[in-house]
Protein backbone atom coordinates (compact mmCIF):
# COMPACT_ATOMS: atom_id res chain seq x y z
CA UNK A 1 0.00 0.00 0.00
CA UNK A 2 1.24 3.49 -0.85
CA UNK A 3 2.31 5.76 1.93
CA UNK A 4 -0.57 7.86 3.20
CA UNK A 5 0.25 9.47 6.55
CA UNK A 6 -2.44 11.36 8.40
CA UNK A 7 -2.60 13.48 11.54
CA UNK A 8 -5.65 14.41 13.54
CA UNK A 9 -7.07 17.89 14.18
CA UNK A 10 -5.39 18.24 17.56
CA UNK A 11 -1.94 17.48 16.23
CA UNK A 12 -2.47 19.78 13.23
CA UNK A 13 -3.36 22.53 15.68
CA UNK A 14 -0.17 21.95 17.65
CA UNK A 15 1.79 22.25 14.45
CA UNK A 16 0.10 25.36 13.16
CA UNK A 17 0.42 27.05 16.55
CA UNK A 18 4.16 26.44 16.42
CA UNK A 19 4.29 28.03 12.97
CA UNK A 20 2.36 31.18 13.80
CA UNK A 21 3.94 31.63 17.23
CA UNK A 22 7.02 32.73 15.30
CA UNK A 23 4.99 35.82 14.40
CA UNK A 24 3.94 36.67 17.96
CA UNK A 25 6.25 39.65 17.77
CA UNK A 26 4.88 40.70 14.40
CA UNK A 27 6.32 40.39 10.93
CA UNK A 28 6.19 41.79 7.45
CA UNK A 29 3.90 40.82 4.62
CA UNK A 30 5.53 42.00 1.41
CA UNK A 31 3.99 41.92 -2.03
CA UNK A 32 6.24 41.51 -5.05
CA UNK A 33 5.77 41.90 -8.74
CA UNK A 34 6.63 38.88 -10.90
CA UNK A 35 9.22 40.82 -12.90
CA UNK A 36 12.85 39.80 -13.35
CA UNK A 37 13.51 36.42 -11.79
CA UNK A 38 9.80 36.00 -11.12
CA UNK A 39 8.26 33.92 -8.35
CA UNK A 40 11.01 32.16 -6.35
CA UNK A 41 10.88 28.38 -6.45
CA UNK A 42 11.01 28.15 -2.65
CA UNK A 43 10.51 30.41 0.36
CA UNK A 44 14.22 30.00 1.08
CA UNK A 45 15.28 31.50 -2.25
CA UNK A 46 16.63 35.03 -2.10
CA UNK A 47 14.67 37.90 -3.52
CA UNK A 48 16.77 39.30 -6.34
CA UNK A 49 15.32 41.88 -8.69
CA UNK A 50 11.59 41.54 -8.09
CA UNK A 51 9.87 44.86 -7.40
CA UNK A 52 8.32 45.49 -4.00
CA UNK A 53 4.83 46.88 -4.43
CA UNK A 54 3.66 47.01 -0.83
CA UNK A 55 5.02 46.04 2.59
CA UNK A 56 2.64 45.57 5.50
CA UNK A 57 3.89 45.41 9.06
CA UNK A 58 1.77 42.79 10.73
CA UNK A 59 0.75 43.29 14.37
CA UNK A 60 2.10 41.52 17.42
CA UNK A 61 0.81 38.88 17.60
CA UNK A 62 -0.01 38.42 13.94
CA UNK A 63 -2.18 35.33 14.43
CA UNK A 64 -4.70 34.06 16.90
CA UNK A 65 -4.58 30.61 18.44
CA UNK A 66 -5.03 27.71 16.06
CA UNK A 67 -8.16 25.60 15.94
CA UNK A 68 -8.67 22.45 13.88
CA UNK A 69 -5.28 23.00 12.27
CA UNK A 70 -6.03 26.57 11.18
CA UNK A 71 -4.77 29.88 12.61
CA UNK A 72 -6.33 33.13 11.39
CA UNK A 73 -4.70 36.53 11.29
CA UNK A 74 -5.14 38.84 14.25
CA UNK A 75 -5.57 42.60 14.12
CA UNK A 76 -5.43 44.88 11.12
CA UNK A 77 -3.07 44.11 8.24
CA UNK A 78 -2.97 47.10 5.96
CA UNK A 79 -0.41 49.16 4.09
CA UNK A 80 0.17 51.59 1.24
CA UNK A 81 1.21 50.72 -2.29
CA UNK A 82 4.70 52.16 -2.77
CA UNK A 83 5.08 51.17 -6.42
CA UNK A 84 2.34 50.63 -8.95
CA UNK A 85 2.17 47.20 -10.57
CA UNK A 86 0.58 43.77 -10.44
CA UNK A 87 1.44 41.54 -7.47
CA UNK A 88 2.51 37.98 -8.23
CA UNK A 89 3.61 36.64 -4.85
CA UNK A 90 3.98 37.50 -1.21
CA UNK A 91 6.49 36.76 1.49
CA UNK A 92 5.46 36.69 5.14
CA UNK A 93 8.69 37.15 7.05
CA UNK A 94 9.79 37.34 10.65
CA UNK A 95 13.49 37.18 11.45
CA UNK A 96 14.92 34.36 9.38
CA UNK A 97 11.54 32.65 8.90
CA UNK A 98 9.74 33.12 5.62
CA UNK A 99 6.51 31.90 4.11
CA UNK A 100 5.59 32.49 0.50
CA UNK A 101 2.46 32.26 -1.57
CA UNK A 102 1.04 33.35 -4.89
CA UNK A 103 -1.11 36.44 -5.36
CA UNK A 104 -3.69 36.97 -8.05
CA UNK A 105 -7.16 37.80 -9.17
CA UNK A 106 -9.91 36.18 -7.13
CA UNK A 107 -10.65 32.88 -8.81
CA UNK A 108 -9.83 30.33 -6.15
CA UNK A 109 -6.49 29.53 -7.75
CA UNK A 110 -4.08 31.77 -5.85
CA UNK A 111 -3.00 31.68 -2.23
CA UNK A 112 -3.92 35.31 -1.59
CA UNK A 113 -6.56 36.79 -3.83
CA UNK A 114 -7.86 40.25 -4.67
CA UNK A 115 -10.71 41.53 -6.81
CA UNK A 116 -8.27 44.06 -8.28
CA UNK A 117 -4.60 43.35 -9.04
CA UNK A 118 -3.77 46.51 -10.93
CA UNK A 119 -2.32 48.49 -8.06
CA UNK A 120 -1.51 52.17 -8.26
CA UNK A 121 0.99 54.13 -6.23
CA UNK A 122 -0.74 55.54 -3.17
CA UNK A 123 -3.44 52.89 -3.05
CA UNK A 124 -4.12 50.85 0.07
CA UNK A 125 -3.95 47.10 0.52
CA UNK A 126 -5.93 45.60 3.37
CA UNK A 127 -5.94 41.91 4.17
CA UNK A 128 -9.44 40.67 4.91
CA UNK A 129 -8.60 37.07 5.79
CA UNK A 130 -5.28 35.32 6.12
CA UNK A 131 -4.99 31.78 7.41
CA UNK A 132 -2.09 29.47 8.04
CA UNK A 133 -3.08 25.83 8.09
CA UNK A 134 -1.75 22.32 8.15
CA UNK A 135 -3.62 19.46 6.53
CA UNK A 136 -5.58 17.36 8.94
CA UNK A 137 -7.28 14.22 7.82
Amino acid sequence: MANDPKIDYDWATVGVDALVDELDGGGTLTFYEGNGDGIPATADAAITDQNVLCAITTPAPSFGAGANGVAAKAGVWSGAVILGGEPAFFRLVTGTRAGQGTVGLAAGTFDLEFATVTWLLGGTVTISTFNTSLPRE
Partner: protein
Amino acid sequence: MTEKATKPGVRTARVRMGGTGVYTPPPPTPEPKTETEKEKDDGQRPKD
Protein backbone atom coordinates in the same frame (compact mmCIF):
# COMPACT_ATOMS: atom_id res chain seq x y z
CA MET B 1 3.66 26.97 -0.76
CA THR B 2 6.02 24.76 -2.66
CA GLU B 3 5.82 21.09 -1.88
CA LYS B 4 9.30 19.74 -1.28
CA ALA B 5 10.09 16.64 -3.31
CA THR B 6 10.95 13.45 -1.49
CA LYS B 7 11.05 9.84 -2.60
CA PRO B 8 8.60 8.95 -5.33
CA GLY B 9 5.32 7.89 -3.89
CA VAL B 10 5.90 9.57 -0.55
CA ARG B 11 3.28 12.10 0.28
CA THR B 12 4.40 15.24 2.10
CA ALA B 13 2.28 17.40 4.36
CA ARG B 14 1.61 20.78 2.85
CA VAL B 15 1.24 23.97 4.80
CA ARG B 16 -1.17 26.49 3.39
CA MET B 17 -0.92 30.22 3.79
CA GLY B 18 -3.16 32.86 2.31
CA GLY B 19 -6.63 34.33 2.14
CA THR B 20 -8.26 37.39 0.63
CA GLY B 21 -7.56 41.09 0.53
CA VAL B 22 -8.95 44.36 -0.73
CA TYR B 23 -7.15 46.95 -2.80
CA THR B 24 -8.40 50.52 -2.49
CA PRO B 25 -7.19 52.93 -5.16
CA PRO B 26 -5.70 56.29 -4.19
CA PRO B 27 -8.08 59.26 -4.06
CA PRO B 28 -8.35 61.12 -7.37
CA THR B 29 -6.06 64.10 -7.73
CA PRO B 30 -8.08 67.35 -8.18
CA GLU B 31 -7.65 68.80 -11.64
CA PRO B 32 -5.97 72.22 -11.88
CA LYS B 33 -8.46 75.06 -11.97
CA THR B 34 -9.13 76.81 -15.25
CA GLU B 35 -8.55 80.53 -15.62
CA THR B 36 -12.31 81.10 -15.54
CA GLU B 37 -12.61 79.23 -12.23
CA LYS B 38 -9.72 81.20 -10.76
CA GLU B 39 -11.35 84.49 -11.74
CA LYS B 40 -14.62 83.31 -10.24
CA ASP B 41 -12.88 82.42 -6.98
CA ASP B 42 -11.19 85.84 -6.89
CA GLY B 43 -14.53 87.54 -7.25
CA GLN B 44 -15.89 85.66 -4.23
CA ARG B 45 -13.19 86.76 -1.86
CA PRO B 46 -14.50 88.91 0.97
CA LYS B 47 -13.46 92.53 0.83
CA ASP B 48 -11.36 93.96 3.61
